């Protein structure tokens, strides 16, 4: 379907970007097809699975449901933006250490959501992590190792207070 294009400007992983997007394009398609940021995954396309989770102004959303035009003036962080100059961020590292990955397709969204949960609640319990990850489906590992990884990040933060 044809639709008019509009120019938007926003921060993507800390960098200012400016581009024209069709007004019905979703943020996920813009990230992957227009900006080449393919870390964020397309799976269900209807907000059920969380594989496309990104942070907008510090809050996680399903990028498959979000109109790209609504990124205008906002801060977008994708899985590519979690990495620090020192390497993987603690949540990414914990997923690696705990083998919380099998096929890996759900991981970018799972890590974005888990990272956001711990960021908003340093004392996150396992049960709160379970509730917080309800919108992220994994069809191969089960969730035990994912929750172990989240627990490990919470514990590590408690002991040094600055990870």
């Amino acid at each position: 379907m044809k639709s008019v294009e509009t120019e938007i400007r926003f921060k993507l992983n800390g960098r200012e970007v400016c581009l024209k997007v069709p007004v019905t394009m979703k943020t996920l398609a813009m990230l992957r097809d227009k900006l080449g940021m393919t870390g964020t995954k397309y799976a269900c396309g209807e907000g059920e699975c969380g594989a496309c989770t990104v942070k907008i102004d510090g809050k996680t959303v399903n990028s498959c449901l979000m109109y790209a035009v609504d990124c205008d003036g906002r801060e977008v962080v994708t899985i590519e933006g979690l990495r620090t100059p020192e390497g993987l961020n603690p949540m990414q590292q914990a997923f690696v250490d705990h083998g919380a990955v099998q096929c890996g397709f759900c991981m970018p969204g799972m890590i974005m959501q888990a990272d956001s949960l711990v960021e908003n609640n340093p004392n996150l319990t396992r049960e709160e992590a379970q509730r917080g990850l309800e919108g992220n489906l994994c069809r191969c590992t089960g969730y035990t190792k994912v929750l172990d990884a989240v627990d490990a990040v919470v514990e590590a933060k408690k002991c040094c207070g600055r990870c």
Partner: protein
Amino acid sequence: MQEITTYLAPRRLDEALQAMADGAATVFCGGTDLAPQTESGVRQYTAKLLNIRRIEGLAGIEVRGDKVRIGAVTTISEIRCSPVLAEIAPVLVEAAEHFASEQIRNAASVGGNLCNASPAGDMSPPLLVLDASVELACWRDGAVQTRQVPLDQFFVSPGKTVKLPQELLTAILFDRPAAGFVGRFRKSGPRPALEISTVSVALGARVADDRLSDVRVAMGSVAPTPLRARHVEAALEGKPLDAATWAATIAAAVAVTAEDAKPIDDVRASAWYRGHLVRVFVEEVLNEVRGN
């Protein structure tokens, strides 16, 4: 298929309403309903796409005296995390807690959830028991005009409301519940998250002097629209909470649920099962309200 020729993301309400005056704008806020509905073809875009999320004055929760006002673009997350709503309308916070997933709660707006007019919309039963109204605004005679519609007169059929195409839902309004008002919400689905309710029930009542008063019961997914269960309400109004008559009160309320709930068989559940869930939920919430 319609070509979209205009995209607008105004900051002022009057600009938005003027753009809607021809009744040909597709309005969105979080986009969590519009996106999948247009992708799957159950809804078509019109020539004008209007993003209302940036309009000033449409966000936030405000309590002035006895009046509560929730701006239409307030997200479900904001309701879920609102300390003031937790204090004065916990039934709404409880429903927000059971709404989809965090990613969707962060994007979806309460006004959008009502305008989507799903019989299963999670914000409808708690707002119905709070006796809420919606504020509808339009541009007429060179000015912003508003009207208020009680929520139980807002829904017409699945996806349809009394809101005119040139009107925008700007806020949800209700009075601060009286002292002793207790509310409860229940919804059912195969898992707690991301569930389109098989059945939902909300009950609110004033519990004082060992009696129920101002009883309001609302149900979702049991009819073409969310509804107030007037027969159940009548069976409960003024009833005492004492142990001797309580079982009979519950039985009387449960017995008339079929007068209000007219569920259908569909992919999510059979009508029989829905009727059963309604009876179970009414009993459960009544016991909780009494125990409170």
